[in-house]
């Protein structure tokens, strides 16, 4: 299953331990994470379900392309990192 890890800086506000969840797209993977951790959703996505402006998601070493639809394809062995962007601090 894909693994998801979160930036250390988010942990001060809401605990987001590394996790393994199923999913074939970034959206499906994040939905699976937030089902078990609903408060974290609003820290990563805005109310339109889009990645917050100053957040970034790396998928197997590359930043995802579809920040609004989160449609980038995820493989069973993929690694996702939910990070803060350098902007917005």
């Amino acid at each position, binding site marked *: 299953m894909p693994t998801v890890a979160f930036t250390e*800086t*988010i942990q001060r*506000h809401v605990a987001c331990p590394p996790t393994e969840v199923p999913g074939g797209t970034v959206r499906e993977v994040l939905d699976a994470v937030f089902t078990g951790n609903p*408060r974290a959703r*609003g*820290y*990563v996505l*805005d*109310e*339109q*379900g*889009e990645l*917050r*402006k*100053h*957040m970034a998601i790396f998928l197997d070493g590359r930043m995802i392309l579809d920040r609004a639809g989160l449609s980038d394809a995820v493989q069973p062995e993929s690694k996702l990192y939910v990070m*803060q*962007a350098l902007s*917005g*601090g």
Partner: protein
Amino acid sequence: MSTRLFAATRKGLFQIERGKSRWTVKKVHFLGDNATMVLPDPRDGTVYVALGHGHFGVKLHRLRQGARKWEEITTPALPPRPDGTAPRMDEMGRTIPDSVQLIWALEPADPARPGSLWCGTIPGGLFRSDDAGMTWQLNTALWDHPKRLEWVGGGADYPGIHSVSVDPRDPRRVAVGVSTGGVWATSDGGATWKISSHGLRADYMPPEQARDPHFQDVHRLVQCPGQPAEWWIQHHNGIFRSIDDAVSWRELEVTPSSFGFAVVVHPRQGGTAWFVPGTSDQRRIPVDGHVIVNRTRDGGKTFEALTKGLPQRQAYDITYRHGLDIDATGDRLAFGTTTGSLWVSENQGDSWHTVSEHLPPVYCVRFVGAGS
């Protein structure tokens, strides 16, 4: 008399209390985080704070009276964009975000119903909660009003609601100040809204539009609790007063400057109000490096520059629209500035005591138990 106040700053929420003779910082909440708005609720002692995390978005927290721990509550949210539609563009061709960017106003909605709240945001949403912030409802009558789409950014890139005045005679009567979009008023609890900024003047518009009530950049709107027909506006262009329930507004001649962001009115005397002026919109610094508070006691016929205890040379403090507050007695005032100074007066501004000159930039100052 209030003996405690909160200052919401760029780096935390500062709790400031009066000792035997001095006001000092007693505690800092959310140290390091961007606190943009605070409401110490006089009805039940709950303190609400809005945080604007650069990365993680806007959040709301509350501290119940007697509780030791803050709890995160629900952040107002804009409705989902209809499927397949693109975000709206503003007049500059920029995408208008359809998520809350800033909580810019937080007020008790009904004195008789603790937990009822109004919240104004950027972009220009007005939200209502009746359960102390656990759930929020967007006021769709104002959000869907065709004229709302004509609001534009003033102090920020996008328009927002920064002032919410609930009429002490009837909580269904509410007025909001929009930067920029004028004053909007409801008398039915928000079911219908009317523009209420006739008489305001906008020099930054073409002459034909300068008096259009919809194009007015209201910086701050306040209503006198004891004489609720009397109102004040600190506007981008100057200072305006209404004595007819905000139906009409009259511009005042003010020295040394009528530019600024903040205004408070005495809780019982509608003709007495305080302002913290800057030089002009082009020069947002104190006039000649003097920090002053401008006070009128005669409805704006004359103004008195209050300086005792305030820096009078090489001072560059600017006070934002929520940076000035008055307590329920009308005797105590406090203001905090962009350069981290905070002063308190216990004699209606005749003299000022320095609490600190080294705070982070101050966005909002509010007395506990007795705010304006």
